[in-house]
């Protein structure tokens, strides 16, 4: 039995906001299945009492003072925008309220 089904892959695509084609879904499902079998090996390591590591040096409390630094100009901020209007980013109609 595969560890991930085509339907699950389609669900992941929705979560990740990628409009996968049927072809891609057909392709991806078995590939992901293979990769998941590989990465699943981490569960073979007994590590219940091992703390997780996220960085090379255990840094803490890296903070900045509450001070202002110069902003981008609105022109710079909007320079990469696919569309803009009234000094704002213009985006297609939004379906769902936040």
């Amino acid at each position, binding site marked *: 039995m595969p560890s*991930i089904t085509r339907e*699950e*892959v389609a669900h*992941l*695509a929705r*979560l*990740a*906001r*990628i*409009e*996968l*084609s049927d072809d*891609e879904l057909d392709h*991806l499902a078995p*590939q*992901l299945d*293979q*990769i*998941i079998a*590989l*990465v*699943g*090996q*981490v*569960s*073979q*390591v007994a*590590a219940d009492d*091992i*703390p*997780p*590591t*996220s*960085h*090379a*040096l255990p*840094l803490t409390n*890296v903070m*900045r003072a509450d001070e202002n630094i110069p902003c*981008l100009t609105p022109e*710079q*901020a909007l*320079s*990469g*925008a*696919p*569309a803009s209007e009234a000094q704002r*980013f213009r*985006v*297609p*109609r*939004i*379906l*769902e309220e936040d």
Partner: protein
Amino acid sequence: MSDLTRKTAAELAELMAAKQASSVEVTQAHLDRIGAVDGAVRAFLHVDTEGALAQAAAVDAKRAAGEELGPLAGVPLALKDVLTQEGVPTTAGSKVLEGWKPPYDSTVVKRLKAAGIVILGKTNMDEFAMGSSTENSAYGTTHNPWDLARIPGGSGGGSSAAISAYEAPLAIGTDTGGSIRQPGAFTGTVGVKPTYGGTSRYGLIALASSLDTPGPCARTTLDAALLHEAIAGWDPMDSTSINQDVPPVVAAARNGDVAGLRIGVVKELGGEGYQPGVEARFHEAVELLTKLGAEVVEVSCPHFEYALPAYYLILPSEASSNLAKFDAMRYGLRVGDDGTNSAETVMSLSREAGFGAEVKRRIMLGTHALSSGYYDAYYGQAQKVRTLIARDFAKAYEQVDVLVSPATPTTAFAIGDRINDPIAMYKNDLCTIPSNLAGNAAASFPCGLADEDGLPVGFHVMAPVMRDDLLYTVGAALESALAEQWGGVLMTKAPELEVTR
């Protein structure tokens, strides 16, 4: 004047300091070389001719005015297209960012500019640094200057190919699982991954935040060290940056004395799956270091075998989140905005059109690994494996000063060979990944050509966190001993590229 493009960065800096060449001349020579060979190599995605010459002229003017300049002032460099440079197109090898001109400089670029280093242009890479061959670039594959039918390694294949093809003496790469070291090995050049946090990630388009590390690429150990020193050091804009002095990398590269240095050969990184020619050159190099006075022992790092699976959970998880920002709302490719489609639909269509197959694969994998019910088994467990790997390193460093292994199991493979087999491609990074997971410093130095295919082999050195200087000690010792044997650095054995005008 002899060909400026054949000189090392240190030599060029000396020439310019002695006013025997100007930065404009040096820069122009490299731009000409790019014009001559890049049609075949395809290392560059964007050549900033005007910007580079203007930077060069500015350095020349400062020198003429007697201003104090950095040790690499006026030397040209190729920049991996994953670092932002204000006003210069930055794509990370992705269609999703085609034409994007960042409104700000990355910290690395700021420091390069401050050092007077001239940025020639942006180099090709696997899309968002996901890959080991540059075949995942949306803009075509870079070719290995040693054999144009082969890949140059990845993700930073463009940067390593550029220096290997004498298009630039220096380049910047970024290393998440080997993306500086593996292309270095495949192109017969030096590639260094500094300690994580030793170089700033600000302005580096993130792949995996907890692994990404910018670092130097060069044809010699000293050049790499000079560049390392120019870009390294604490950056208040990067919370994970280490607030300590930069290790004395240049002094180490100049000194290169391994007498008494304790070197551990990692037992697990060799044997089955490793090309005989790779192993042969690696063991000869170890022998050579022994002759130079190093004490060599075998060391076991039992958890390294889990590095690859842990890496392919951590990286996709972080990447799936890091790449969410590419949604067609604020910048980048927008597809399907026909006035009726919703923002939600336009996001999905744009991401479908803008991302390549490998990027989608990893986003999906990461989304899966983080989703509810899987987190503990995947991301959580992988972070624990990370601890075990760091402990393997720590235990090893109780016995030895540095660890060594081949940089890659094989030499550069043919274009197209592994593109349909993700797992075979992933296994390229077996030797390099543990250092990214533990965050320690590591580098690949050229150690000869494999007998089977006559292609470069990389010698991999792994040093403790913030002991980047030890990499250069080993690299410099090896380099000078091998040069003595060969009558020059390995690069002098590279075939001449056909020059087109």
